[in-house]
């Protein structure tokens, strides 16, 4: 009862803050201090949102962005978890791959984008590869860290009960590492969104990042802000999805940090 009540109160506070922000914005727009080009009113942005939602073309733009972000992310998730577990459970893989990842971790991979354009073309592939690369690092690092902390007693008892090596990996190591894996996913997914928007802003003819830049360049500020709202909602929705999935799969451990409320 009390937890439900607290959740309701916190949700109400959020809505109130959001409403306050909208009201301040609308007041700024109506005050006439700024040109509507700089601060367009909420109603204009809402109209543009409706315009975007009612046109199939704009849905295709959104779909292009989602496809790229999720494609690169999914690839990084599969490869990253496999590499991370391998590095954590095999001394050889850890000693060979560990230094490679830790030494190239702080290098901004985005600088390689022009090279990728030449290697993979200016279309979706170069963007997906860059998203893959940027997402790979946090996933590998967190999975690696997690798979090294697996309780030894669990491994021993599984081995004692005659579970094969592959069985131990799949039935013991992966579930025990799952909280870390999801922590890595929660870092990587916003990165995937950032990178897809950036690459679309730099060079693209479709996608939400392109649409935002194009609207700005044609002085359609209200439309640009509508696109920004769509991107923001998309980011929040994808993050929520990961949290949902985590709570489903890692039901034995409550998510304490981040969204603890």
């Amino acid at each position: 009862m009390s937890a439900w009540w607290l959740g309701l109160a916190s949700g109400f506070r959020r809505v109130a803050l959001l409403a306050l922000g909208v009201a301040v914005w609308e007041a700024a727009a109506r005050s006439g201090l700024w040109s509507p080009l700089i601060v367009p009113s909420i109603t204009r942005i809402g109209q543009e949102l409706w315009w975007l939602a009612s046109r199939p073309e704009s849905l295709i733009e959104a779909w292009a962005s989602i496809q790229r972000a999720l494609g690169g992310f999914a690839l990084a998730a599969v490869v990253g978890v496999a590499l991370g577990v391998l590095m954590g459970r095999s001394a050889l893989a850890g000693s060979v791959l560990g230094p490679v990842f830790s030494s190239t971790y702080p290098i901004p991979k985005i600088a390689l984008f022009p090279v990728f354009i030449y290697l993979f073309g200016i279309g979706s592939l170069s963007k997906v590869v860059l998203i893959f690369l940027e997402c790979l690092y946090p996933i590998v690092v967190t999975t690696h860290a997690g798979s090294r902390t697996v309780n030894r007693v669990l491994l021993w008892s599984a081995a004692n009960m005659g579970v094969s090596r592959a069985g131990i990996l799949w039935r013991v190591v992966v579930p025990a590492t799952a909280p870390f894996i999801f922590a890595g996913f929660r870092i990587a997914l916003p990165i995937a969104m950032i990178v897809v928007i950036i690459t679309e802003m730099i060079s693209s003819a479709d996608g939400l990042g392109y649409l935002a830049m194009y609207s700005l360049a044609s002085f359609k500020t209200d439309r640009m802000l509508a696109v920004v709202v769509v991107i923001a909602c998309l980011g929040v929705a994808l993050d929520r999805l990961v949290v949902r999935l985590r709570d489903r799969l890692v039901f034995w451990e409550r998510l304490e940090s981040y969204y603890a409320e």
Partner: protein
Amino acid sequence: MLAAVLVLWEFATWFEHPEFILSPSEIARHFVEAVWSGELLPHVGASLGRALPGFALGSLIGVVLGLLAGVARSLDQLLSPVVFLTYPVPKIVFLPIVMLWVGIGDVSKILVIALACFYPCFINAYYGARGTSRIMVWSGLNMGARQGQIFRKVVVPGALPLVFAGLRVALALSFILLFSTEMINARSGLGFLIRQSESSLRFDLMYVGIVAVAVLGYASDQLLLVIRRRVLAWQEAGR
């Protein structure tokens, strides 16, 4: 391992290869040339002039507010819902808005970088401050420490490991945003140099820019780790 990759790469360029792939030795030669001729350094300066103020501004505000929100309930209730709600929003989408408000120059880039750095710093400092050991606070109070003293001597040192973790994430983010904002629109800086030389088919200069980015990212990360080792001398020096 890295050396092996470099040797393999060098070896591979002895055979037929497309024009846009240069061997490591060629890249090294061009790098030295570009540094010598003064072609590179102004761009490095311009990039650092954007990344450092943005990082400093965003992380300072983030750490201070995060620590305070971790301690004071009223600030927590005011700030945390907003921060956690907007955390997964890709901050780069604010670049067009900020460009519209403060112009296309350096200020818009610095502000976007600061905004992106704010989030990881706030969240880590927040959880660092909230994770303060209760017994430490009680014993501090018991020994007659005032509120300010508790904050300075107990909460802040206890939160520092997480604060540094946040700073490290923010530093990496600041570089990502720096180069992307420079690639999108700038007249100077490493991102501009890479983009410009790419579109004018100066592959040597493009690789020089990429190497400079890598060196800068790596060096600043190492610098942060050194500072962390100094400040957190009592803790086991983590990687």
